């Protein structure tokens, strides 16, 4: 330890401060000193998806996923179906983007069979898992029913989905990626599509939120916080200002 800490002088501080602009000019990392940085329009608002066309799915895959989400969330008096609410479009856009590529995850090898407590250990990102899983699903239904999944009756589709959910059906996937895991991935993404903000392509007209009474992107409930057992009176709003 030298003496610099013992005698921190005004000259010392000024000398250090004077050195800062030089450092800032030579460093590639962002260097901030002397102010609280702010710049206009620096936020990163989400971009609403364009609902037309398919970005990731092939026509057969798209029809298969539409058939699946139609059964996971069937139409009734509570809400339109998962397909009508845009869940398949939602999943398509998610798979075409960062989620589908697992771009934020740890994807270095070696890939080994893990224990249930260690989570997914396969080498396929979600996009690859859908591609493989949908193909295997249609192979299974063609073997069993001589038809693609989308051509089955609603009862048969439910039978296949329940078999996947209950691990009674084994699709031809690959080690480290089970049929149950494929089902859980599709179910999770379908629910995301039904309940996420409509800007992502699902939850059309905020149908998922209306079904349960979730007010969406409202941000201030001070007028209702301490009301006892009183339903919240207002309908939902979305991030881009849709009101329902």
């Amino acid at each position, binding site marked *: 330890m030298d003496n*610099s800490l013992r005698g921190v002088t005004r000259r010392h501080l000024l000398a250090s401060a004077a050195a800062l602009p030089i450092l800032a000019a030579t460093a590639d990392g962002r260097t901030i000193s002397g102010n609280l940085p*702010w710049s206009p329009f620096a936020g990163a608002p989400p971009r609403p998806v364009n609902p037309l066309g398919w970005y990731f799915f092939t026509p057969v895959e798209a029809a298969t996923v539409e058939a699946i989400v139609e059964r996971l969330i069937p139409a009734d008096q509570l809400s339109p179906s998962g397909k009508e609410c845009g869940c398949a479009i939602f999943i398509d856009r998610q798979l075409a983007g960062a989620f589908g590529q697992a771009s934020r995850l740890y994807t270095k090898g070696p890939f080994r069979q893990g224990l249930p407590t260690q989570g997914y250990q396969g080498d396929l990102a979600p996009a690859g898992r859908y591609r493989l899983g949908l193909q295997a699903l249609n192979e299974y239904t063609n073997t069993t029913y001589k038809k693609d999944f989308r051509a089955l009756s609603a009862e048969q589709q439910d039978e296949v989905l329940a078999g996947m959910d209950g691990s009674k059906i084994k699709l031809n996937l690959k080690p480290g990626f089970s049929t149950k895991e494929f089902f859980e991935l599709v179910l999770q993404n379908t629910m995301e599509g039904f309940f*996420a903000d409509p800007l992502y392509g699902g939850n059309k007209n905020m149908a998922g939120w209306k079904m349960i009474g979730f007010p969406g992107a409202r941000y201030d409930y001070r007028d209702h916080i301490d009301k006892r057992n009183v339903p919240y009176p207002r309908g939902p709003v979305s991030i881009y200002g849709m009101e329902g």
Partner: protein
Amino acid sequence: MARVLPKRDAVIIGLGWTGSILAQQLTDAGLNVVALERGPWRDTATDFNIAYMQDELRYAIRKDLFLKPSVEAMTMRNNAGQTALPMRDYGSFLPGDGVGGAGVHWNGQTWRFWDSDFSIKTHLTQRYGAAKIRGLQLQDWGVTWDEIEHSFDQYEYICGTSGKAGNIKGQIQPGGNPFESPRSRDYPNPPLRMPYASTLFAEKMRELGHHPFPLPSSNLSRAYVNPLGIRMGECTFCGFCERFACGNYSKASAQTTILPVLMKKPNFELRTDSEVLKVNLTPDGKMARSVTFLDAQGVEYEQPADVVAVCAYALMNVRMMLLSKIGTQYDPVTGKGTVGRNYCYQTSAGARLMFDDKHFNPFIGAGALGQTIDDFQGDGFDHSKLDFVGGAGISCTVSNGRPISNRPTVPGSPRWGAKWKQATVDGYQNSMGFGSQGSSYPVRENYLDLDPTYTDRHGRPLLRITFDFPDNDVRMSHYMSEQLEKLTKPFNAKYTAVARLQKGWNSVPYQSTHNTGGAIMGTDPTTSAVNKYLQSWDVPNVFVVGASAFAHNAGMNPTGTVGALAYWAAEAITTKYIKSPGALVPA
């Protein structure tokens, strides 16, 4: 070759809660400080925008504000007989990223650990005898309650914590927590207004003879100006708190309480997108001379400094010490070595109640909004006839009704299809819950070290977590589940479900971002990595600040104690170390 930058008085690794507190206090004392932050600059107006922060998919599900495993992952296993594999996504816990760190997306629960926590071994041994804690590596923290109380006070006033004191200088206060250790004064702000579920919980607990109180919250109950002159807003109960940043300036974070003052100081500099690779020691290994870091373009720099403060997340602090060879790796076989020792977590259970005729409006919530009973907390109740030590706070918090993750149904309901829809509609408004957040006590076989196989993007070994719930803690948690059963009775709910903890910690479902230990404080350099001032026993110009210093974890959220330890360490540096650099406690 690394480019060598001009020497600083102090370099701080990580600008989250602890880094910001140290930077503020050290610059106030006249030191010339640089902070190196791996992630980006983030501030409320630009990055926590009130127009689109309420986006469950982006922030809660896709984890936009969290550390990416592609940047730093960890491996895990339940015991040394298993092969650790990488958590390819974070699940059980979610470390933070960028300026503000995990303090951006925390809930705001601001607890003080108890006097009996800081001297836990002495306390339990005196009360029950040494045999009671055999098999547990419980040890005193080195600092005492009387020494550190003012640091808790300092942190609460910076945060604007809203609550009700239960014990002011030994005088029990009605409406507060009668079990808390004596505090010097009340919280800076009154408690938040309470939602229906929490109010109902408090009524029932009072009927049962327990002692409910509003849990201490750094979601502010009113507008407030903190001691640094920074203005904060009133919480609006938006229901987008944990996993989100606050768009209202009403949740305490480095951004809302310290940075507006710190960033304007001429003797402070922040470098963002700058990842510290290691602390460089002198050839004899007895002093730190600099840190090596990479900027966003991969250019390597060396930053010399007289003091190095390691202020990353608890787990990253431990990894930084191991990568820098500060101290000796703990060995669970021999019990020797200190870095990686006493890794602890949190041991929880929960109750869910469903009714026919209630409107709980679960979406009207805040991260730290609710009522708690501490009647089964820590050693606040007699353990002499029980087969465990430790305890849990039992809280009814209402944090959110975000529907992708939070739509409870009656147990056994279908998870898709028409019947799922009806069950979801029935459950969403009619459901409330409360849970026990239990202590986690250290055992020899739970520890942290470097993984032998998996590496990060720079080729450095990942941290390896070897952890399972110790038998003592499982017994504690099962006892809490039995209490939860009793506590649910007076509600006369239509359905009641109480969870019981299973052995075999699962890294996938979210549990708690309360990882503690690994670089613990203590009185003995053979059983602790840092002394009572969070100063490395081995390299005295290195201070390691955060929950890494916890010698065990209590049944409370850790951030209040983390903040207090940061003020405590900063005070030691500015009032003791600067005047006489060297070991503050003789080894």
